[in-house]
């Protein structure tokens, strides 16, 4: 029986649907105290004295700690290849200055969360407000957010390849467009949170943390707290969603951990929704100027781009990654001989940004795919045809782009053909002609994408017991992906057992082997491949003995193997088609259909893969229709609750139809690439192209998302 490739239902669903999952807030420890934070009301201010007298006088309040009370380092900053990154890590509690509204200034520990909030209101903080820095394009001339960071440039990266200047000079035509991609919030159903407990007799600090994996909290907390790995244990319980926003550990987690050591009591912080809006890192936030040089036959001769990323007040370990990824993927699925791309990651007085589903890839797809449509309009060519003339062809892989990454595999034209068929583009074009004759506003758009996925390494420990049951200890960690199902399918095939006989253990750094974590659509390609390597070692031993793995395990009283799997980046890809209609009297955008074609290499479980496509597409649609984190001129987040920041519901969703093209990756034994983010990457590009297509008869060439009613209504007047 082969299990990989079958639509096995998620075995973990029974637990979740019955309410039997254990989230952070479900955990209980004896003597557990609760934390609340005093947060800055100003986007930018010098920080004066913190007076906790009145708060400490409330019965039941145990402690109020400010930045100067904790002996900790800021959270670590991460770099990007070939880039310069400033030393501007997020302080555990604000020191000297606050750099966004909502930044944690002091920690209150009390017998209950309600009491901690009462006390937090009584903490008096002196602030000297400073001018906020809000516009990433203007920030280089603004007041300095960090005294040591000139021109507020936290990250600089650039690359020139070929001779773009000559290409533009000699080009038949050139097109240029400026873009603004707003910030978004990840909005997981379960906000962030942590419990910290220190056992002084053994000096072990245990942190239960709603996170994407235990490894990065372990490394980041170890850095901030100055604590060795063997004195720190991180346990990730069931997690109610992350979408990238729980990859880098928040300063609040480090504060609670440091306080648990300092005070000698176990402490919990369960983030509330307001805190999550204000203080969890946001996604996207990019301004860009992009130009293409074109030959008369539609070949793209050169790409020029300047990107201004609105990074916020500090750098998390992953903050620089998203704009770097955007830059590196700007050539998309196209063979472009000359490039000149520059990124400035700008300090603004807003909450930092970080990875959110797609993490730089949706921005790249949006920019290049919009430019290709604008170029097609300029040349009077069909947008799909212009794409076909520029695709990296199937025989070119492995293909190194002029920006430096090497695409491992892909079938871009097959993906486009499949999407054009699935999205019924020909029929929709006829419908569009009729609709236009009736005064209706209909548009059809295509969006291609390339997704950097996987890379680095993961590990797996595998033990097969004498009774034939297998236990997989994986460094990869689920928060909605379905590891318990897919990893059991993989192990079952390799070991020749039933998936039900495979137990998956994850999340506790004291139990699982080292790893990096769950992000970048890498679980199956990396964690799954580590599992394959371990299982194949057992299978080889069994074959040598002339036995099955189960027989060998029975004979030896159980057998074990461990593996570490390492690989370069793999590149998933795909093509999406969106059809939209705009209601003229109200400006309301309706997405009528989305056709989603993803090439994620070999699919382990088509049911779960489809779930990933649907979920990611819905998040991509949200970005098009309603989502936008808006700051006012004082730097206050205006969209700080679900009353002001909308997420789509089932009622708004169009028909979404998916299909997979399977071009296996040569870089791992499963042939897997990534499936977690394609919908979020390609959907905004496809919908934006459809909106521009719909508005073309009104003389509109480009609209930035979100495509709100008021914006579209004005364009239609």
């Amino acid at each position, binding site marked *: 029986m082969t299990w990989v490739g079958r639509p096995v239902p998620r075995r973990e669903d029974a637990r979740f649907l019955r309410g039997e999952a254990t989230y952070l807030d479900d955990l209980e420890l004896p003597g557990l105290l609760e934390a609340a934070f005093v947060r800055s009301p100003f986007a930018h201010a010098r920080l004066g004295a913190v007076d906790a007298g009145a708060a400490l006088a409330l019965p039941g309040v145990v402690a109020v700690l400010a930045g100067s009370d904790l002996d900790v380092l800021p959270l670590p900053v991460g770099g990007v290849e070939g880039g310069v990154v400033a030393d501007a890590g997020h302080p555990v509690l604000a020191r000297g200055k606050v750099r966004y509204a909502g930044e944690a200034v002091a920690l209150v520990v009390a017998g209950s969360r309600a009491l901690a*909030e*009462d006390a937090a209101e009584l903490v008096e903080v002196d602030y000297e407000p400073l001018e906020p820095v809000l516009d990433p394009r203007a920030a280089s001339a603004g007041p300095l957010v960090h005294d040591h960071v000139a021109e507020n440039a936290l990250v600089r990266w650039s690359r020139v390849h070929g001779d773009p200047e000559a290409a533009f000079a000699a080009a038949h035509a050139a097109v240029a467009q400026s873009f603004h991609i707003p910030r978004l919030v990840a909005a997981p159903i379960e906000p962030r949170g942590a419990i910290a407990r220190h056992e002084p007799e053994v000096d072990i600090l245990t942190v239960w943390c709603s996170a994407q994996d235990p490894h990065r909290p372990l490394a980041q907390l170890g850095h901030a707290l100055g604590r060795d790995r063997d004195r720190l244990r991180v346990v990730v319980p069931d997690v109610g969603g992350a979408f990238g926003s729980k990859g880098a550990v928040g300063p609040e987690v480090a504060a609670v951990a440091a306080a648990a050591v300092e005070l000698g009591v176990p402490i919990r912080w369960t983030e509330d929704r307001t805190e999550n809006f204000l203080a969890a890192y946001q996604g996207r936030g990019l301004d860009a100027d992009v130009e293409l040089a074109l030959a008369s036959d539609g070949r793209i001769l050169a790409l020029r781009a300047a990107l201004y990323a609105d990074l916020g007040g500090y750098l998390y370990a992953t903050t620089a990654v998203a704009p770097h990824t955007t830059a590196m993927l700007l050539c998309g699925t196209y063979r472009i001989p000359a490039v000149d791309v520059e990124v400035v990651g700008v300090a603004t007085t807003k909450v930092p940004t970080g990875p959110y589903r797609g993490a730089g890839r949706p921005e790249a797809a949006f920019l290049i795919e919009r430019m290709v449509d604008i170029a097609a309009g300029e040349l009077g060519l069909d947008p799909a045809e212009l794409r076909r003339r520029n695709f990296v062809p199937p025989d070119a892989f492995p293909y190194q782009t002029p920006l430096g990454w090497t695409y491992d595999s892909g079938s871009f034209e097959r993906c486009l053909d499949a999407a054009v068929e699935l999205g019924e583009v020909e029929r929709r074009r006829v419908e569009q002609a009729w609709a236009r004759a009736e005064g209706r506003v209909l548009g059809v758009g295509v969006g291609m994408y390339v997704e950097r996925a996987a890379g680095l390494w993961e590990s797996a420990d595998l033990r097969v017991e004498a009774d034939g049951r297998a236990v997989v200890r994986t460094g990869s960690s689920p928060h909605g992906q379905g590891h318990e199902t897919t990893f059991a399918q993989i192990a079952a095939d390799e070991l020749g057992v039933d998936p039900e006989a495979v137990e998956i253990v994850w999340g506790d750094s004291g139990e699982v082997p080292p790893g990096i974590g769950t992000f970048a659509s890498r679980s199956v390609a990396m964690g799954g491949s580590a599992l394959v390597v371990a299982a194949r070692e057992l299978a080889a031993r069994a074959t040598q003995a002339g036995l099955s793995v189960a027989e060998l395990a029975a004979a030896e009283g159980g057998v074990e193997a461990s593996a570490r799997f390492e690989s370069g980046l793999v590149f998933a890809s795909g093509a999406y088609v969106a059809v939209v209609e705009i209601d003229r*009297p109200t400006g309301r955008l309706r997405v009528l259909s989305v056709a989603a074609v993803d090439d994620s290499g070999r699919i382990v479980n088509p049911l779960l893969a489809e779930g990933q496509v649907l979920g990611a597409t819905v998040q991509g649609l949200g970005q098009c*229709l*309603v989502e936008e984190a808006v700051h006012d001129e004082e730097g206050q987040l205006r969209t700080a609750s679900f009353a002001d920041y*909308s*997420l789509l519901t089932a009622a*708004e969703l169009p028909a979404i139809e998916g299909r997979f093209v399977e071009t296996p990756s040569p870089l791992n034994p499963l042939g897997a690439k990534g499936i977690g983010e394609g919908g979020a990457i390609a959907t905004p590009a496809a919908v934006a192209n459809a909106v521009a297509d719909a508005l073309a008869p009104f003389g509109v060439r480009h609209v930035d998302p979100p495509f709100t009613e008021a914006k579209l209504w004005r364009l239609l007047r």
Partner: protein
Amino acid sequence: MKPAAFAYDDPRELGHVLDLLAREGEDVKVLAGGQSLVPLLNFRLARPDRLVDLNRVEELAYLRRDGDVLRIGALARHADLERSEEVAAGWPLLAAAVRFVGHVQIRARGTVCGSVAHADPAAELPVALAALDARFHVRSARGSRTLGAEELFLGFLTTTLEPDELLVEIEVPAPPAGSGSAFVEHARTHGDFALGGAAAVVAGREARLALLAAGPVPLRAREAEEVVATRGSFPEAADAAVAALELTGPDADWRRALLRELALRALERAAA
């Protein structure tokens, strides 16, 4: 997101509720479904000294047809309205409007009288009730009075109810014989706060029109009704409905166009 401390009472009888509301020197709030009040408490935007919980006052939990009128008690839930066959048959505008109230969990808990007393101009039922010429019965330890919509709604989230008064019942007369009705709404997502909306009841040239999110209160568009009566033109009536609106903010022009379109659609559908 925990409320500030408050005292709490859960009386069993209306008389006891009114006595508690009459106490001097305290800021007292009435808790019914809690779908607006509890978030305000959790955000600490509302900090009452005392909550009086109506949920155990059984005499207020009713929704019934009484001859030609519908009587909605203070504890009738949105879901009661939504599921009532009598409402669907006799007051289809209410049945249509209630489907736009939040989500199913909110409708299961939230009360019709609570929504009216909260007086959010973007709420559905106050607007539908205004279009139906509903009467609002108010009680206090001092006595009782009955108000029309235009006497009840004073401003944004503000009514003419005194601190010691409770909205105990809404009385909805039967719509005019042979009338049709329609409720239309525009929100970013289903169940989200309305950006605009309209409720219409039309019988020939007798039209009643009320607008959502068109000003500080649920708004009866009397000028538009007059235009239907005198000229019989829905597009002109829709123009008249929005002509006098005082809309502000960067999207005021779009909101006026939206409300005009929604008024027109409501009138046309009600007449269809």
